[in-house]
């Protein structure tokens, strides 16, 4: 209790003393205080924070709209992007399969034609339907 009374007296004495300080000293003290405060904490830049907040709010605002407004541009874009990858895979895959199938059929055809070309029987014989009949057992004799 005594300590509190003592502290009160000291504060009173300081306040009374401060009232008697001359103008120049007051100004110097005020400047020193400002300089000390400026060194103590960096400038808070409240403007920068206020700029960032709307950006974050925009991002957050898109969230709830996913459920509530499916027609939203962002949602549509996301949906489109989600489907684009499988679609691209599908198209590229189909093109690949088609090319591979084409290559295979050309190879098979080339193998067959090469065999026909290298055979001893004339190609005209093979190309004649009459030879088909002969191969089928039709001798053509009346």
């Amino acid at each position, binding site marked *: 209790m005594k300590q509190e009374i003592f502290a009160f007296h000291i504060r009173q004495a300081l306040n009374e003393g401060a009232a008697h300080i001359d103008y120049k000293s007051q100004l110097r003290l005020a400047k020193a205080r400002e300089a000390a405060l400026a060194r103590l904490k960096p400038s808070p830049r409240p403007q920068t924070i206020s700029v960032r907040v709307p950006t974050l709010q925009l991002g957050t605002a898109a969230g709830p709209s996913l459920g509530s407004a499916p027609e939203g541009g962002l949602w549509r874009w996301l949906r489109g992007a*989600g*489907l684009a*990858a*499988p679609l691209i*895979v*599908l198209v590229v*895959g*189909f093109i690949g*399969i*088609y090319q*591979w*199938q*084409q290559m*295979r*059929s*050309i*190879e*098979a*055809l*080339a193998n*067959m*034609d*090469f*065999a*026909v*070309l*290298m*055979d001893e*029987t*004339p*190609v*005209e*014989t*093979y*190309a*004649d*339907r*009459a*030879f*088909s*009949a*002969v*191969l*089928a*057992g*039709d*001798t*053509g*004799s009346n």
Partner: protein
Amino acid sequence: MRLGRLLLASAALLLGAATVFAQAPAPRTAAPARPAAATPAAGDGPAWSQLTPQQQEALAPLKSDWSNLDGTRKRKWLEISARYPSLSPEGKQRFHERMVPYARMTPEQRVTARENFKRAYTLPADQRHSAVQHYQELPPESRQELADKEAAKKAEQAAKDAPQRKTRPAGESQPAKK
């Protein structure tokens, strides 16, 4: 998660398509009964000047006809030409001699040639030789008669099969019935 499922579905679809493609008959180089010179894509594929000297040597008899071939036929001939260097001198000569008449056949004739070749090689060698010999001994009129009969049979069979296979072109893949 959803993307993963979609990718999985796409992969399954592609696998299905690949299976269907693999089981499907090889695409025809041209429709039957269409003259070789009238192929719509004639001029496609590499020009004669773009071929390597080795390819030009192998396909020399086709030089004058090369620009009239469509892309698929060019690719087929290029594929065939890759086998040329491994042939003996006699083989190379035979290859060149038979190449021109074969290339100048109608697509239908080539289809028949492939079919007959396949059928001939299902027979034992002696039967095959005697069939060739029998054919060569036939007078032209008998050959014509047999060819007409075979064509009629083929047309009949094609008409019978048509409703069952609307998507497959008639002719090439269907072997002639006995």
